[in-house]
């Protein structure tokens, strides 16, 4: 049985109130972060013609942007830890906006690689990391719901910005569109302004000890790295995270998932056309998927928040992955238009469920202190499967015209494998955690009993000492009172003064 969510923050998070405004800010920020690399592809043809670049050169823009966005994770974690989320999101928004505006004046493809790809990508990276971090600071009980709502920004922005971009392109050409898009990205600064830092209560000496609830006790092994995370957050890559079993399992499962996750999106239109659909309907399939995704993410967050699922959230995550993979595996059996639409719907459901939970599960595993550095590490490692996945699938697509479903089989099986791996791994992990916890409880008990014994010993010895002290005091007192009496007597006798010296001497 998985433990209930651990409160390792050191304070009780608001779980509401201004937190919902923060969710809105995170929604906007994450929306821009995930949708921008995809919607830029609308401009590619126009840029290609104007700057005389080849198709593959143009496609690099998206890849560089995604790579910068994911690879900048560790840097972003360190900055967020140092400065807090608000200034970082505002800086990220500023970087993106300015880079787009400058790129609109570009005269060569290298110019665009640098400004949109590298600087824009880095700006988005800052946005992403900071938004996720602040959600983990503001929410605990309602965190899955908050995560689901924030991650829903990605499909919402995709559905809104894509037609907007098309309109801008027709109206202003690609230069004017990038110019205006840059201004739109400055809205990330508005999102950043919403991310008010959490009002922390003053740290008291015994506050950390007093805050541990009973539940936190049960996830005892998680608290050990917590303290180390706070210290090591200044480092870029916190290798001690790899000692955490849960983290390593999560990483492996996620790498497999990401390898197979994006390729179906990229190649679905190609596949649909090969099955006899026309270009317009094929593109429409992706819109359907995005639309479904928009609603599935918050619903998944709500579902994950319920008391039946929250403790078992890692298993729910595995289930979502397996569902997604099975969807892909079944797709080759469907080749009519109606079936492909149904596939797009189920794909949207699966994809949305996984992405609503993907960061929530990491927060659940790592706790809020470790999460920023963990997410930075996860994103930089996920960079590789993300960049390798679509070309590998593309290779399969090009391999044969008759068997265009091969890439779906590959992606589906990889994703199902990831889901099953995570399921088994989490079973093992929780089993080991329970065992360790039981051991720890025993040790604690022993420690307590031994401490009690020691305390008792101490007390008895103290009592004995005190008694001794008291008796010796009494004796002294008696002695001293006796002395006093004697002195008085002596004084009297001195006043009387007749040959009593001998007596005095004898008495003294």
């Amino acid at each position: 049985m998985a433990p209930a969510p651990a409160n390792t923050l050191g304070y009780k998070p608001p779980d509401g109130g201004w937190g919902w405004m923060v969710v809105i800010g995170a929604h906007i920020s994450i929306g821009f972060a995930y949708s921008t690399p995809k919607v830029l592809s609308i401009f590619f043809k126009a840029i290609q013609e104007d700057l005389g670049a080849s198709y593959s050169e143009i496609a690099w823009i998206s890849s560089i942007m995604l790579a910068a966005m994911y690879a900048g994770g560790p840097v972003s974690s360190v900055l967020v830890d140092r400065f807090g989320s608000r200034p970082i999101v505002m800086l990220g928004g500023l970087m993106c906006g300015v880079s787009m505006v400058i790129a609109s004046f570009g005269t060569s493809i290298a110019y665009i690689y640098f400004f949109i790809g590298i600087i824009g990508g880095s700006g988005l990276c800052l946005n992403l990391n900071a938004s996720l971090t602040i959600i983990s600071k503001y929410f605990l009980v309602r965190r899955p719901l908050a995560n689901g709502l924030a991650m829903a920004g990605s499909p919402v922005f995709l559905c809104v910005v894509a037609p907007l971009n098309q309109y801008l392109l027709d109206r202003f050409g690609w230069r004017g569109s990038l110019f205006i898009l840059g201004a739109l990205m400055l809205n990330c600064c508005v999102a950043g302004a919403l991310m008010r830092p959490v009002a922390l209560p003053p740290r008291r000496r015994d506050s950390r000890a007093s805050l541990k609830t009973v539940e936190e006790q049960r996830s005892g092994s998680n608290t050990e790295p917590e303290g180390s995370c706070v210290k090591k957050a200044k480092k870029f890559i916190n290798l001690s995270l790899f000692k955490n079993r849960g983290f390593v399992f999560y990483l492996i499962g996620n790498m497999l998932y990401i390898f197979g996750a994006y390729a179906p999106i990229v190649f679905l239109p190609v596949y649909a056309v090969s099955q006899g659909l026309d270009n317009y309907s094929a593109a429409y399939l992706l819109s359907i998927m995005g639309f479904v995704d928009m609603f599935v993410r918050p619903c998944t967050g709500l579902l994950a928040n319920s008391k039946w699922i929250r403790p078992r959230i890692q298993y729910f995550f595995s289930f979502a992955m397996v569902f997604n993979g099975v969807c892909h595996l079944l797709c080759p059996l469907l080749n009519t238009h109606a079936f492909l639409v149904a596939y797009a719907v189920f794909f949207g459901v699966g994809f949305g469920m996984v992405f609503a939970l993907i960061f929530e599960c990491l927060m659940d595993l790592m706790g809020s202190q470790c999460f920023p550095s963990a997410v930075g590490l996860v994103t930089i490692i996920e960079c590789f499967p993300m960049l390798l996945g679509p070309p590998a699938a593309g290779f399969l697509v090009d391999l044969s015209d008759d068997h265009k479903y091969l890439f779906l089989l590959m992606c589906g099986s990889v994703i199902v494998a990831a889901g099953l791996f995570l399921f088994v791994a989490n079973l093992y992990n929780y089993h080991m955690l329970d065992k360790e916890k039981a051991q720890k409880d025993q040790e604690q008990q022993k420690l307590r009993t031994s401490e009690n014994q020691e305390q008792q010993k101490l007390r008895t010895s103290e009592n004995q000492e005190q008694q001794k002290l008291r008796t010796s005091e009494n004796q002294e007192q008696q002695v001293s009172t006796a002395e006093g009496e004697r002195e008085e007597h002596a004084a009297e006798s001195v006043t009387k003064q007749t040959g009593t010296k001998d007596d005095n001497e004898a008495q003294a």
Partner: protein
Amino acid sequence: MSASWGKLFFQLVLLLASCGHINTKTPSPTSPSLDPISPLPSDIRRVVLKGESHTEKVELLNPVDLALECIWSGNENKSPNITGYWRKDGEEMQSIRVTVQLENDKYTLRQVFKIVSKENLGSYSCSFGDEAKADFLLAGPQIGEVRDKPIVSYVGDSVVVKCKMDEKKPKPASWNWYKANGTDKEQIFYAAEPQKYEIKNHEWVTKLVVHKLTEGDSGFYYCEGVYAVSTTMGHVELKVITFLEPLKPFIAIIVEVIVLVAAILIYEKSQSKKNSAGGNETNADQTNTPTPGDNNGPEESSSTRQRKV
């Protein structure tokens, strides 16, 4: 004696040959000039008339002897003879009006036309009396991609206007570019203004590069692909705008961002002032009361044992 027989024989052959050519003369009313001896490739288009009229598109690129055939099954009263005649671009070709016999329950009208130049293209119609008609539209191939949305570019920038022929069809021998000037089309000569225009042709694609755009460069541009006998025309619209156009929404959005950020920060300041005015409530214990003490696991921060008083 044999020489004169030989000459006679030769002249006879010539006569026969020229007689053979008379039936395939060009459809223009004027008498044709001497036909070239080199044979042209031949092609045939056949149309079976069902109902009143029919239109068939014929794409022609190279000179060809084109045979056009119309077959009609007739109407209720199948008269044995009917007049069949041809029209080019609406004008009747008097010289080839024939009487068509009813054969196998249908009328067949066939004519071979020599297509060697642009004038030979157009609309050819075959008619059976006044009752059935078919049209053949002889033209060059359609341009492959016609861009329906205008290309947008900026003053002072340079732009590439592209025309692409379908790669399944043969490539044009050359390309011409025209700019619409009112209702006319004015040809753009490459050499005349080399600073302004550049034409790059590459197989199926032609590109017109226009440098140093001005607002006057807006309008329609026509690309014409030239084949042996035909040409084909495509058009692209170019719109040139100044930088002020996207600047207006840009400034509007910037203003909106600044206003929102300022509003949020001011609201926050006012909230915190209220809070600090109402006593240090925010610093109040959001923490739980200390749970009675059996929870000291390996705690890194407080290693001292708590002695509960």
